[in-house]
């Protein structure tokens, strides 16, 4: 039983690589357009980052957070979200898949529907956001005087991965809604894209209702604000036990992934295809 499950999982992983490989090959046929898209995406996102920096022209700090610290939050959110987009965009484009009944094709094949959708829209040009986030992190390192211990350096990618899982979880939940109604997908999009905006600023600047929403309902604060308190050595960190701050991304990602997975499985059973 377990053996069979593991074998299936390995099969899925190797299939993911094959699908993504074929998508890459077909994208590489248009190398110039790929580069142009990458550069345009990068430039577009840079203005977003500039807007944050310009904010600090007028205020020295944002409720006690320096420009470097906010750049850190922004970089963290961008990389996580960028990776989620890179690896999970098939779920982001799911309304189209449903509208055109392409999910029929997915269900005809002997692989997990999840893996097939996940690998369905891999586009390298989405690297733009990750590059942009990495640049923001670079500035954050330069502008803050945080002592980066080996533990903290090792922990940083863990937080990024947990963030990625959480964002992919949003995509999956949004996609799951499409099994009932494609029209409501805008609602899910607002939470997902609004969520990255949200994660780019320190939690306390928001209204308390919003803080609670993004902590307990959509646990974004657990992969941005709370671990950043620990990583940046912010004074607020002393309000919480350290293990709680450190464990929060893992717990939030695991829980959210489970919820998204269960919802997805339930949704697939309610897929209705189209009449023509």
């Amino acid at each position: 039983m377990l053996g069979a499950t593991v074998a299936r999982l390995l099969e899925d992983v190797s299939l993911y690589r094959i699908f993504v490989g074929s998508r890459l090959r077909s994208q590489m046929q248009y190398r110039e357009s790929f580069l142009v898209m990458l550069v345009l995406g990068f430039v577009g996102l840079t203005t977003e980052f500039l807007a944050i920096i310009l904010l600090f022209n007028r205020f020295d700090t944002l409720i006690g957070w320096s420009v470097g610290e906010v750049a850190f939050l922004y970089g963290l959110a961008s990389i996580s979200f960028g990776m989620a987009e890179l690896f999970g965009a098939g779920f982001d484009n799911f309304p189209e898949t449903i509208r055109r009944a392409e999910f029929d094709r997915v269900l005809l094949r002997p692989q997990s529907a999840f893996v097939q959708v996940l690998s369905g829209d891999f586009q390298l040009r989405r690297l733009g956001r990750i590059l942009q986030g990495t640049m923001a992190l670079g500035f954050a390192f330069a502008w803050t005087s945080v002592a980066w211990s080996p533990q903290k350096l090792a922990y940083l990618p863990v937080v990024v991965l947990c963030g990625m899982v959480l964002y992919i979880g949003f995509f999956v939940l949004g996609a799951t809604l499409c099994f009932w109604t494609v029209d409501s997908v805008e609602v899910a999009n607002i939470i997902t894209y609004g969520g990255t905006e949200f994660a780019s600023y320190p939690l306390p600047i928001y209204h308390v209702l919003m803080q609670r929403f993004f902590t307990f309902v959509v646990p974004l604060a657990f992969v941005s604000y709370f671990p950043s308190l620990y990583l940046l050595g912010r004074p607020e960190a002393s309000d919480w036990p350290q293990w709680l701050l450190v464990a929060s991304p893992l717990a939030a990602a695991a829980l959210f992934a489970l919820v998204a997975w269960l919802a997805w499985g339930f949704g697939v059973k309610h897929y209705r295809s189209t009449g023509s």
Partner: protein
Amino acid sequence: MAIITVDSLRKSFWVNQRRAGFAGAVRGLVSRTGHEVVAVDDISFEIAAGEMVGYIGPNGAGKSTTIKVLTGILVPSSGQVTVAGLVPWEQRRTLAGKIGAVFGQRTQLWWDLPLIESLTLLQHVYGVPSDRFNANLSYFREILELDGFLDTPVRQLSLGQRMRGDLVAALLHEPPILYLDEPTIGLDVVARARMREVLQEINRERGVTVLLTTHDMDDISQLCQRMLIIDHGKLLYDGSVEAIRERYGMERTLVVDLDGSEEIEGPLELPGMTDVQQDGPRHWLRFRRDQASAAEAITAVTSRHRIRDLTLEEPDIEGIVRRIYEGGDRL
């Protein structure tokens, strides 16, 4: 031995009332105003291994819905179904390796990849060993004449080529069961005849069980011994194609336009023919294939009347379904 069993299958769709705008979308999430559409209504049948069965009915009868349930794409509202001993929507992944499906309206291939690359991807998807893959590919290359377009991206293929590509894609993993949902739609006469030959060969040589929907009565009469007729989700007929042909398929209709100089009120009186419908100078004359050839029928008309134009109509599926209703008979 039945390889497909369908017992009291029912599938209905809840169709929501659409609302405009963002607020409408939010309300659409919670409210349940709409109505139910029963696509498949209490259908039962069995198909034995090696059979080739036609599944026909007018638009919206529930054919595609039934096939989607049999593949595991849709979960039925109620009823029992087994395909190759599996419950499709519960054991979808295992079943997928045992079935092939062609949906004429929609390709299963990758739109922007050359056909051959789509096929190689499918080899990995279905885990087909290389020697089997190569043997099957060369078999289909020959009978489907794929060589001219194997390296062409699918989006550039003609409809007939694409359909052949889709058929190969459905059969590369040697499934014992093949579903075909309108595999001849949009094909010209030559391509259609070729497709039929291939289907016949696959069914005969490889013993593949085939369930086929089509709107073309000729597909059915040339390919199938047995057919199922459904309408409004209900099974009207399950039996031999021959019996239907004898009963309704014998009836052809000669549509004639009388010359303007002939002023005739009411139906024409002609031996062996019934004038079933009139519209101005146009008359629909029904006659039986076993009593008169088309040539004899035409002579019978032209010897008595001056006509300007004529066409010969073969019985189509819609016509047969209509006649079943008219006769009030559930066969």
